[in-house]
């Protein structure tokens, strides 16, 4: 079972991974966006880490809700509300259980991803974070590692797509041939989840 500590470690791992990959995310964003995705997420997840350290919440749901609120309050752009909604809604779906199973998490994450889709109005194939998150949610039913692989593959699969949402959509055909920065950061979030599970001793 996964307790609040696990979710805390997941968010911390995500912050470390985003920090490490920030320049890469910004590089991807400069090809089809406005070159700030890395620095924006870096700022957001730093705030998440600080908030969680200051007053560690006692349940998985509360950890994600707090993290989501921090992202909405600090990231800005589209990523703030979208990632914030993802974590908040996932947290809400987990309820106030003290610990949850990996299957509970996969289901809750599915609800979070659905909320992101509704908020941004995007679907699979629009070249957004959903192209990593949707396959990840499917695969998480099998294992954390499968979720990580599916998210990474989903992010890579955005390269030939034409963007239909977000700032890249303004480029039309010129958005083709570039990996979507949002899908890439979403894959990092799922990778951090799998890394945390493996560090915890193969909790999948």
């Amino acid at each position: 079972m996964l307790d609040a500590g696990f979710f805390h470690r997941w968010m911390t791992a995500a912050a470390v991974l985003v920090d490490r990959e920030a320049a890469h995310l910004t590089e991807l964003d400069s090809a089809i966006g406005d070159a700030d995705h890395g620095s924006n997420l870096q700022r957001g997840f730093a705030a998440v880490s600080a908030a969680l350290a200051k007053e560690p919440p006692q349940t998985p749901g509360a950890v994600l809700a707090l993290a989501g609120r921090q992202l909405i309050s600090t990231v800005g752009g589209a990523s703030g509300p979208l990632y914030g909604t993802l974590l908040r809604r996932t947290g809400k779906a987990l309820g106030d259980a003290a610990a949850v199973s990996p299957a509970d998490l996969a289901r809750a994450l599915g609800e979070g991803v659905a909320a992101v889709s509704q908020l941004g109005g995007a679907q699979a194939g629009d070249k957004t974070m959903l192209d990593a998150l949707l396959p990840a949610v499917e695969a998480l039913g099998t294992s954390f590692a499968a979720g990580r692989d599916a998210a990474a593959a989903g992010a890579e699969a955005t390269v030939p797509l034409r963007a239909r949402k977000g700032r890249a959509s303004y480029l039309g055909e010129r958005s083709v041939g570039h990996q979507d920065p949002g899908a890439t950061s979403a894959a990092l979030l799922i990778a951090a989840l799998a890394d945390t599970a493996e560090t915890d001793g193969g909790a999948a």
Partner: protein
Amino acid sequence: MRMLINVPETVVADALRGIAASHPGLTVDVENRVVVRRDAPVAGKVALVSGGGSGHEPLHAGFVGPGMLSAACPGEVFTSPVPDQMVRAAAAVDSGEGVLFVVKNYTGDVLNFEMAAELAEEEGLRVEQVLVDDDVAVTDSLYTAGRRGTGATLFVEKIAGAAADEGAPLDRVAAIARRVNESSRSFGVALSSVTTPAKGSPTFDLPAGELELGIGIHGEPGRERRAMMTSGEIADFAVNAVLDDLRPSGPVLALVNGMGATPLLELYGFGGEVHRVLRERGVVVARTLVGNYVTSLDMAGCSVTLCQVDEELLRLWDAPVETPALRWGR
């Protein structure tokens, strides 16, 4: 890349401190990133709050003051502000007559302002929103996030601000703002890429002798790249793109806007060409504004925005305004 900055992390806060020092008519909350006209809330008047990424100066903080915005929320460079800023701004300027959010059509701005409107309404404020989406370079709105909001933002904020100043109620101010947006179209051209402080190198690579047509204001590349054109050829392309979409049946306001790094010598020359094309197309120009108003950091280039006006909109446009960047009639 040489920039007049301390460190990339503090460019927005540093600029806000400078705005505070330079404009005693404004109250600047540097920590929470809210710029408010000093006399707000103005009793009996609807308040206007706008905001968006930084890097478009003087938009938006430069348009705060009597006759225009009540408050502005600057986000990080090219990044929408967060709902907390917008709610704080709305609460600071609301006199009880309600608040109009002026939102440019970018996914981030739309989402954050929507969240802010919800939160503000939970706090008992009345909020209306107007979405600015004037950029004709975005041709297939069904398959994109919709038209971008660019130069028309200035027209919306000035004219709706004047309506609010006259004491029009919230629904009326919102309706006028929407009418201005529907009557406005823009087209932009880049002669160089921007360099954001965080990245420190040009966002896109534009070889010498080429230009980007149909750019936005965030350093995102345009829709098309061509060999360099003359000022007259660019005016032909941009103005015709706007007119073919707007099809005005009356006089227009013209904004000849610099993107940040193009000198006024060139902008005025371009403005003359814009007037030539409009003359050739039989369009009467009621007023013209030439300068750097809706910019994109150090990008060279320009945009043209036209707004078809009737007597009411023209009267509101001419009404007094007193902001750091726009000032007349007082």
